[in-house]
């Protein structure tokens, strides 16, 4: 007989692990990309907003979480309007600079510094914080155009606040010899994660920089040591190699001023040697830290009852940070779809979800999405897709 007065055991939360699934095909992605490139040349680049949208639609819709595909519902026109608005803002800024030059400075400033120089400098100084604002606003745009199970994603918070915070933290980090990197990484991840939501379901972030400082300090000093050793190795190899091959300064000058197939071969060899040295000594360390940081940030994120984890290894981070970069560079940009495909597969392979959300409690977000997007990001930052 069962004692019905005894308390029932609390039901264990469902922590069934699952991974996203990416089922895109590289050949299909290339078909879309080549069309995008051809239209770019025909329209002198103005089709890029639509091309980017098509590529996103492909990537998003081939990505499924818990069996349900993502939807990307952004429009090229929205991106173009965002870009044109920022162009207009720049025009107004240019007008203000001109008025200042004409009526306040009376065309007289530091010798050699013309109106155009002042405008360029002002953009340089404004561009850094605006790029951060653009990063946040761009993320907001992409999230609000993304749906899962018909529910729109969203990102709260202020892009300008994020821009100010990111600018201040980067400045402080630079002044402190990059020693604030863990603090900066956590403080900047916090608004990007904790302000994101799927409908009414917020993401939560519980990261603390103190958790990762130990690893970072190890990386920091190992990195300095690795640079010293790498430079010493490079200088020794160049001096010894030059002497043993009987190369004098004149030969080097001749080599670099009159291109021959031999010059190209030597340059490729040199670039390869430098890359191997850099790749062996420096990059693995950096990837080791970045993989750790990624795992940490993911593991401190949750969405209601869903927990996240990642098993990204140093080697996989190398493939993401270094190999992807090399692919794009070596192929002069034509390898971009390959990189996007590799990245999607990496995320699908290395992002683990534990549990599933209570779908009935997640509703459409109350806020209206932004009408346009990514203008600042387009103008002040290098954007992929």
């Amino acid at each position, binding site marked *: 007989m069962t004692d019905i007065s005894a308390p029932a055991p609390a039901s264990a939360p469902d922590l069934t692990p699952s991974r996203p699934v990416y089922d895109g095909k590289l050949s299909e992605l290339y078909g879309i990309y080549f069309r995008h490139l051809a239209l770019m040349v025909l329209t002198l680049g103005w089709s890029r907003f639509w091309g980017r949208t098509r590529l996103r639609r492909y990537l998003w819709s081939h990505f499924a979480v818990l069996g349900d595909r993502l939807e990307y519902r952004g429009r090229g026109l929205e991106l173009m309007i965002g870009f044109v608005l920022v162009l207009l803002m720049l025009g107004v800024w240019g007008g203000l600079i001109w008025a200042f030059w004409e009526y306040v400075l009376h065309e007289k400033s530091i010798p050699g510094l013309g109106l155009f120089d002042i405008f360029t400098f002002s953009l340089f100084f404004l561009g850094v914080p605006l790029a951060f604002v653009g990063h946040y606003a761009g993320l907001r745009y992409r999230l609000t155009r993304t749906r899962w199970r018909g*529910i729109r994603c969203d990102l709260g918070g202020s892009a300008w606040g994020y821009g100010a915070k990111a600018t201040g933290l980067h400045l402080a980090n630079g002044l402190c010899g990059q020693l604030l990197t863990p603090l900066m990484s956590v403080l900047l991840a916090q608004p990007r994660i904790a302000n994101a939501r799927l409908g009414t379901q917020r993401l939560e972030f519980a990261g603390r920089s103190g958790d990762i400082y130990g690893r970072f300090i190890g990386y920091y000093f190992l990195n300095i040591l690795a640079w010293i050793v790498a430079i010493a190795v490079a200088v020794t190899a160049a001096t010894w190699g030059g002497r043993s091959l009987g190369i004098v300064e004149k030969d080097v000058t001749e080599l670099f001023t009159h291109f021959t197939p031999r010059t190209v071969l030597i340059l490729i060899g040199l670039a390869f040697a430098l890359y191997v040295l850099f790749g062996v000594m420096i990059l693995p360390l950096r990837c080791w830290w970045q993989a750790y940081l990624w795992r940490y940030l993911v593991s401190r994120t949750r969405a209601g009852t869903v927990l996240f984890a990642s098993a990204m290894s140093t080697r996989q981070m190398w493939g993401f940070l270094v190999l992807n970069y090399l692919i794009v560079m070596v192929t002069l940009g034509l390898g971009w779809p390959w990189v996007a495909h590799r990245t999607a597969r990496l995320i699908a392979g290395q992002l683990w979800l534990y549990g599933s959300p209570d779908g009935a409690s997640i509703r459409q977000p109350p806020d209206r999405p932004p009408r346009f997007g990514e203008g600042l990001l387009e103008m002040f930052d290098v954007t992929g897709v």
Partner: protein
Amino acid sequence: MAARTRYYDGVTAQALDVTVRPSTHELVISRTEGIDVVARWPIGEVRILGDSEHEAVPPLAHGDERLMVEDAELRRQIALAVPQLAKLGAPKPSATGRIAIFGTTFAALLGLFWVGIDFGSELAAPMVPYSLQARLGNSVMKELVAGHQLCTSPAGLAAINGLANRLAKAADYGHPVKVTIIRGGPINAFTLPGGQLLFYSDLIDKAHDGNEVAGVLAHEMGHAVHYHSMKGLARQYGLNQLLRLMTGGYSDLGTVGAGGGLLLALQNGRNFERDADSTGVLLLEKLGLRADGIAEFFADLEKAHPTDMAAQLGIWSTHPPTAERIAATKRPPTGKPAFSDEEWAALKAVCGSNKENNPVPERFRQKPLATVPTPPPAKEPPGLPPPGKR
């Protein structure tokens, strides 16, 4: 991914596995075949989001509600049953075919764009309204002469401007040419858009005779009549656009591209110099003037600087090697002198014999400045070789 049909109600994030029954006027969505209906969508209100090329499964939408039919065969059947949803049954286009078509188109367009830059700049540069060219030239001239003293002796300027305009006429240039002379060095001359020529007085001072200056002037006229400065600008702009389109604005690639662009610009520069050399000689010969001046001038330069920087720099140089230029422009010392003795004397004295300050004329002044800053007369003009090497 399992071939199933998922229904999202658009209100919550619940997902249901459903079956769909299409009819001519509605889609009936139910949890099990025909029973437990969860939604009825009037056909007129159903939209297909996207297409089979870009979407793995083009969603069917009714407001915020979604229906994801994973099974391609079922999508085809719905498309057959409901003509308004015919697009849903479209097969995925062949990736290979699209790569072949668009890849070839892209390559062909790049080639065309390249040809367009090369030939387009050749054709378009002379068509740029002369007023615009003159304005552009004037603004660059303003920058170049700022803070320098100009040589303004009327007789000297008349001599050099007279020859310049005779050469322009011989080339059917059709626009007035104006020569401005800056006091001092380096030993150089420039051509700006709109028929504006800029000489440094050191070039005139160091020349052995008027024919050498005439040779340089004719060379600069070669640049002017071929609109090299406008062509250079147009090509640079076109090349930047091409690189931007090719690399999708990827910044590091842009840097690599800019390096390539710079090399091409320098190659253009060397070709322009060769054109200007040969045109300059032709123009002098056409006027029956001595055409050996430019080669003599180059020979003097070579003597003064035996290490030829242009040859040293090779592909990084804006000019061809001096020895090559001497060989290309070598002419016999026949023909009339380009300047009369009086004209040559006036030109030698264009900066004033007592080296008095010649302020920048009004048209080049930066407007609101009350006085143009005039640096004290230099004891040693910049750019000259050290005394031991003169």
